[in-house]
């Protein structure tokens, strides 16, 4: 099925000057959806239920109320993207961690894609009260592959539950990629998100997190590498409505050649969220003349008893670091690669799964080898 996309996505919750072209992203292109490239689940850890929400009544321990609630969670790419996923996805893959279970082994969802594949999938991850679950999603194809891969993931961390979601995107340079995430966190719950956005040609990432519960929390770590003509458009929204809720978002990466990147990060400290605390930090290394970087870190504050902060550092490699590296015998090019790796590794270090680390490492080495 060929589908023409005319979508306004990654919309800012509060608009600003239109000349900046940051209020939203627009996708106007056709994609072929052939359903190739579904997930491969190697093994299901004890305490995790995997099923399809279309027949969730068959799942032992399934909670209809929870299933309904999760459908209402807003996602970061916005309503038009949500409609797109609703139209084209058959069913939703559901992952559920049983109440009180601390599941150490990660559930791995591997998507191996090839050239010409076109797939959109929906997923839900529910961590029942007091449970802990780690899900690793890995989207991989060959470097020059062309295609479309869209994934929408809704997360619901119930009281005292922790969801660790690790997303590794290593798609081909001619892929159009959507990663649309929505999360709801209840009292004492936590969502920990790690994203490595390394591949893909045109990448759109949206993350919407609602910290609804008392002492709920969100930590986000995103690493990206955009080279050649790659583009990455990100939209993060963290809503604090729970008292003493906390959030931290760290985004680090590098742009090279003609790469483009937009980053929108919004911390919304809502009325009544007393004691809430939100922080976002962005670091971008600019490595070539032709790069384009746009950054918009927003804080919305409707409560006085809160703390909100953001910081951004955008620029080239500092001359002091470069001088030091050169005094140690490195060329400027080698110094750039080393520092880029250091930035990305600081994010990658959030991942403990050895296989995932190896895949990221391999991808990065290959990418830098092509640059040498």
């Amino acid at each position, binding site marked *: 099925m060929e589908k023409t996309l005319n979508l306004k996505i990654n919309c800012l919750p509060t608009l600003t000057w*239109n000349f900046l072209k940051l209020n939203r992203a627009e996708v106007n292109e056709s994609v072929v959806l052939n359903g190739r490239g579904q997930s491969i689940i190697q093994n299901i850890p004890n305490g995790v239920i995997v099923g399809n929400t279309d027949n969730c009544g068959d799942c032992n321990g399934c909670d209809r109320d929870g299933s309904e609630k999760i459908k209402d969670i807003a996602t970061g790419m916005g309503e038009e993207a949500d409609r797109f996923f609703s139209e084209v996805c058959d069913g939703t893959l559901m992952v559920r961690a049983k109440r009180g279970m601390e599941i150490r082994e990660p559930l791995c969802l591997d998507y191996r894609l090839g050239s010409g594949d076109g797939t959109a999938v929906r997923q839900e991850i529910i961590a029942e009260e007091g449970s802990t679950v780690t899900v690793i999603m890995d989207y991989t194809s060959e470097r020059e592959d062309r295609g479309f891969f869209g994934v929408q993931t809704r997360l619901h961390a119930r009281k005292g539950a922790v969801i660790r979601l690790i997303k590794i995107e290593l798609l081909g340079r001619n892929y159009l990629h959507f990663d649309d995430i929505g999360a709801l966190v209840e009292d004492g719950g936590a969502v920990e998100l790690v994203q490595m956005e390394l591949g893909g040609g045109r990448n759109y990432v949206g993350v919407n997190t609602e910290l609804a519960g008392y002492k709920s929390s969100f930590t986000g770590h995103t690493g990206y590498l955009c080279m050649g003509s790659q583009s990455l458009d990100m939209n993060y929204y963290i809503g604090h409505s729970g008292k003493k809720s906390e959030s931290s978002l760290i985004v680090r990466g590098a742009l090279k050649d003609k790469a483009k990147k937009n980053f929108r990060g919004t911390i919304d400290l809502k009325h009544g969220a007393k004691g809430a605390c939100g922080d976002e930090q962005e670091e971008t290394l600019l490595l070539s003349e032709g790069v*384009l970087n746009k950054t*918009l870190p*927003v*804080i919305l504050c409707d409560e006085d008893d809160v*703390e909100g*902060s953001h910081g951004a*550092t*955008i*620029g080239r490699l500092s001359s002091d670091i470069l001088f030091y590296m050169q005094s140690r015998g490195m060329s400027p090019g080698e110094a750039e690669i080393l520092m880029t790796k250091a930035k990305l590794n600081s994010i990658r270090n959030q991942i403990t799964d050895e296989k995932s680390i190896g895949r990221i490492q391999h991808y990065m080495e290959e990418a830098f080898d092509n640059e040498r």
Partner: protein
Amino acid sequence: MEKERTEVNDIDRSMYDFRYSEDDFYRVDEGLTPEIVLQISKEKHDPDWMREFRLKSLDTYHKLNVTDWGPDISGLNMDDIVTYVRPNTKMSAKWEEVPDDIKETFERLGIPQAERTSLAGVGAQYDSELVYHNVKDEVSELGVVYTDMESALTGEYEQMVKDHFMKLVPPTDHKFAALHGAVWSGGSFVYVPPGVKVDIPLQSYFRLNAAGAGQFEHTLIIVSEGADLHFIEGCSAPKYNVANLHAGCVELYVGKNARLRYSTIENWSKNMYNLNTKRAVCEEGGVIEWVSGSFGSHISYLYPSSILKGDGSRAEFTGITFAGTGQNLDTGAKMVHIGKRTSSFINTKSISKGGGISTYRSSVTVMPSAEDAKASVSCASLMLDDISRSDTVPAMDIRTDKADVGHEAKIGRISDDAVFYLMSRGISEEDAKAMIVSGFADQVSKELPLEYAVEMNNLIQLEMKGSIG
């Protein structure tokens, strides 16, 4: 036991809230039509090119939409606004010749006294026209021109005005720039010749006295190569129950290695829609310094812009915004780096209180040509109660790898730790809190001329009582 919350009083505007009758003033009809624009043009004895410019701007105004971002301005109906009100007097260079009630207005605002003690020249505008303009002999002897825009438009500087008027802020820039182009009146023209350093500031003061009126003054300043100027702008109005509009325009041309400091204390009344546009362009080595205090108006859209065109040019913006009850102040700055080795620094503070909304909005654009550009943005917001709101929306658009851009922002309330520390040093809790809030604003007030810093401190009358909730 329920704790008592720190109280910080709203700004006291009583010294600005007085008015006089305008029965004998000339007014055009309410609304905005080609006939009204032509009438204003005729009253002002415009040259032909300006009349055409106004009509073209009006056409542009009708073609442009109101912005889809920022505070709601649906309460502003142009059909109710009188765009031109002329006092029944001519501009004079002597206060004695200014009508008593108008003179009294400026006396109460302290303008003549400031002129005597600390200014090189003063322009005073009342509604749509300047009523007083004077510059000290020693300054004019240096070749400095400081006059009203109308005189500049028809005198020996007409060509200079024509070459610069609304070239930095074209009417197509946005709807209210187009409105300004159509109905502008009043304002000042300043020309500082090459190498001339004006040691003491020039000041223009804009007073809007008429209810339901608009003020559209145009300020055009040209600081030539190697010259130096400090220009101060002040504005106020009494409060009415109908909407008033201020859509002024400021265009600043800073020549090679020249420096211009532009200081503003804006204290419009709380029925004012302040939709002002300010922009500067700097040639090689030029420096523009903005110091801005936004305290008044119902709605404000104000983002002074600096275009760093020349290599090595520099811009600084230091601003404070105090949004109290009934106010929605959307303020900030724009920096555009074009030349090599350009640098910019934005440092802002905002305070929200009594349900006021303060938004800090900025953009830093570094073009591909701006090699070795440096930009830094720092904004801090203080929330004084839980019924107010404070947002920060800073954007950075970087198009070269040879740039260094940094940004930091923080929002919060008065820190309990800081209060505790000061109290441990023997300072009372009330004094500690007052000290913290004063210190928060101090970084901006110290950049103001002394008399304005005093005015600002008077404006922010901080009364602290009890302990924080």
